C-alpha cells in the first residue's frame, strides 16, 4: 500500500516535470521556428528591432558567456582542487568553500547591481562586454568551484595510493592522477557554468548593456540573447514578439546543444576513468 502511494507520488512528480519541460520546448519551437529565418541569424536588427536579425545578440551572448566561463574556470578549477585537497588542513580552503556556498545563493540581479558598482563605475570599464563578462564570471564561479570540489573529492583513495606506492609525490599524484580521474567532472562543471551564464539576463542588464551592433572591442557594449528576449517581448508590436520567440528558440538550442556536448565529452573522457 505504502509502496503504491510512493510510486504514485513519484509518477506525478515525473509527469509534472516532464510536462512543463515539454510545454515550454514545444511552444518555443512552434512560435520560434515560424519566426526563424536565415536573415535572423546573420543580420543586425533594423527599425528598432522590428526588422533584420539577431546577430548582435547571438554574437554578444557567445562572447560574453565564453569570456565569463574562461575567467571563472581559470579561478574556479584551481580553487575547487585546492578546497578538495586541503579542506581538512587549511583554514583558507574552508573559508573559500564557505564563500562559494554563500555566493551560489545570491540572486543574479544582485550580481548585476554589484557588477555595475565595481566593474562599470569603480574600475571604470563602462557599460561593456568586459564588465558584463566579469560580472557573469562571478555568478558562474561558485558553480565551477563546487562541482570541481565534489568531483575531486570523489576520486577514490586507492587510486592515489597506487601512485604514492610507486614513489609519486603529493603534487605528482594531484597533477597526474587525481586530475585525470576528475577531468570529465571538471569539464562538465565548466560547460554547466557556460550554460547557466548563457541564460542570464539580470547580471548583464546594467553591466554589458545592449547594442544593436556586434561589439567592436572589449570595452564596447554588447547585446545578448536573454536580454533580447526581454526587450523584444516588452515592445508593443506583434512582429517584435515573434522575434522574441525566435531569440528564445536560438538560446534554448544553444544551451541544449551545450548540454548534449557535455554529455558526449563526459562519455568520451570517462573511458579511462576508474569506477
Amino acid at each position, binding site marked *: 500500500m505504502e509502496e503504491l502511494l510512493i510510486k504514485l507520488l513519484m509518477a506525478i512528480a515525473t509527469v509534472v516535470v516532464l510536462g512543463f519541460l515539454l510545454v515550454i520546448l514545444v511552444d518555443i519551437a512552434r512560435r520560434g521556428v515560424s519566426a526563424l529565418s536565415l536573415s535572423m541569424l546573420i543580420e543586425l536588427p533594423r527599425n528598432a528591432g522590428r526588422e533584420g536579425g539577431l546577430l548582435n545578440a547571438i554574437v554578444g551572448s557567445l562572447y560574453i558567456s565564453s569570456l565569463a566561463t574562461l575567467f571563472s574556470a581559470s579561478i574556479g578549477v584551481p580553487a575547487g582542487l585546492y578546497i578538495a585537497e586541503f579542506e581538512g588542513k587549511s583554514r583558507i580552503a574552508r573559508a573559500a568553500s564557505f564563500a562559494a556556498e554563500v555566493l551560489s545563493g545570491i540572486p543574479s540581479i544582485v550580481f548585476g547591481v554589484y557588477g555595475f558598482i565595481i566593474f562599470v563605475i569603480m574600475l571604470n570599464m563602462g557599460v561593456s562586454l568586459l564588465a558584463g563578462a566579469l560580472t557573469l564570471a562571478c555568478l558562474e564561479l561558485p558553480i565551477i568551484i563546487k562541482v570541481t570540489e565534489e568531483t575531486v573529492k570523489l576520486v577514490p583513495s586507492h587510486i592515489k595510493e*597506487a601512485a*604514492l*606506492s*610507486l614513489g*609519486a609525490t603529493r603534487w605528482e599524484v594531484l597533477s597526474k*592522477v587525481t586530475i585525470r*580521474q576528475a577531468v570529465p567532472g571538471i569539464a562538465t562543471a565548466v560547460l554547466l557554468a557556460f550554460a547557466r551564464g548563457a541564460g542570464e539576463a539580470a547580471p548583464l542588464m546594467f553591466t554589458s548593456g545592449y547594442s544593436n551592433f556586434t561589439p567592436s572591442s572589449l570595452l564596447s557594449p554588447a547585446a545578448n540573447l536573454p536580454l533580447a528576449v526581454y526587450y523584444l517581448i516588452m515592445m508593443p508590436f506583434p512582429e517584435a514578439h515573434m522575434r522574441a520567440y525566435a531569440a528564445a528558440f536560438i538560446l534554448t538550442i544553444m544551451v541544449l546543444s551545450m548540454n548534449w556536448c557535455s554529455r558526449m565529452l563526459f562519455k568520451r573522457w570517462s573511458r*579511462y576513468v*576508474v569506477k
Partner: protein
Amino acid sequence: MLSSKSLKNLQHSRPSVQGKIVVENLNVYFGKHHVLKNLSIAIPDRQVTAIIGPSGCGKTTFLRSLNRMIELVDGAKVTGKVFLDGLNIYSPKVDSSDIRRRVGMVFQKPNPLPMSIYDNVAFGPRIHGIRNKKVLDKLVEESLKAAGLWDEVKNRLKDPAVSLSGGQQQRLCIARALAVNPEVLLMDEPTASLDPISSAKIESLIRELKRKYTIIVVTHNLQQAMRIADYVVFLFMGELIEHGAADEIFTSPRNTKTIEYLRGAFS
C-alpha cells in the same frame, strides 16, 4: 639523496641480524590505539614470506610500515627501525618516495590508474625521470612480460586499464610495480578479490618472481600460504607470535596460539 657522510652515519646503526629487511622494535600507533607491538624480525632475501594471522591482527599495518605507506594514515605514529639493506627507512634523511620505488606494493583490490594500459606501466618510470620513448617501450614490454600479461594486451596497449578483467588488472598492477625496478614487492592479499583461475595465475607468478625479488605477502588463506611461502610470520593482536621456515611452521609449530590458528580454532 644521501651523501657519503650521512651514509656512514647510517651504517653505524646497522642491524645485527642478516636479511633483506630487518625490523627492530617496530611499534605502530593509530592515535591511542597500539596496533603493532614491538616487532623485531628479519625478512630473508629473494624468498616468499607470508604474513598470516586472524583479521585485525595488524598484517596490513605491518606491510604498510615496510614502505612507509603507513604514514599516509592520519594519526599514525611509528617508532623503531626498519632496515632495507642496512638503511633505516625511517631515518629523517631518507626520502619516502625513494623507499617506495625500492619497495613496491600490490594492493588487495586491483587499483589501476585512470589511464591506458601502457601509461599505467610507464607511470612509475616517468615520474622517476625516464622520458625516452624507446626506453619506456622496452620497460613496459619487459614488465608486462614479467607479470605474464604481455601476450594478452600487446595489441591493445592504448586501451583503458579499466577495460581489463579483474585478474588482468591485478597482473597489470604487478607489472606497474615491477616497472620501477624494485627490490622488494609487498602484496596485501593480492588474490582476495579474484576468481580461482586468476588467483592460481597470480600464485604461480609469485613463485616465478621470487627469483629476482624479495616478496612479502599478506594472506588470509592458509592453503595459499602453504603453496607459495618459504618463510612464515604469524601475527596475533599486533604481536609477533612465531616466525620461521614455512615447513617448520606448518608441520611443527611451537606456540599454542599458532597451533590453534593453523587448526582453524579462530580466523
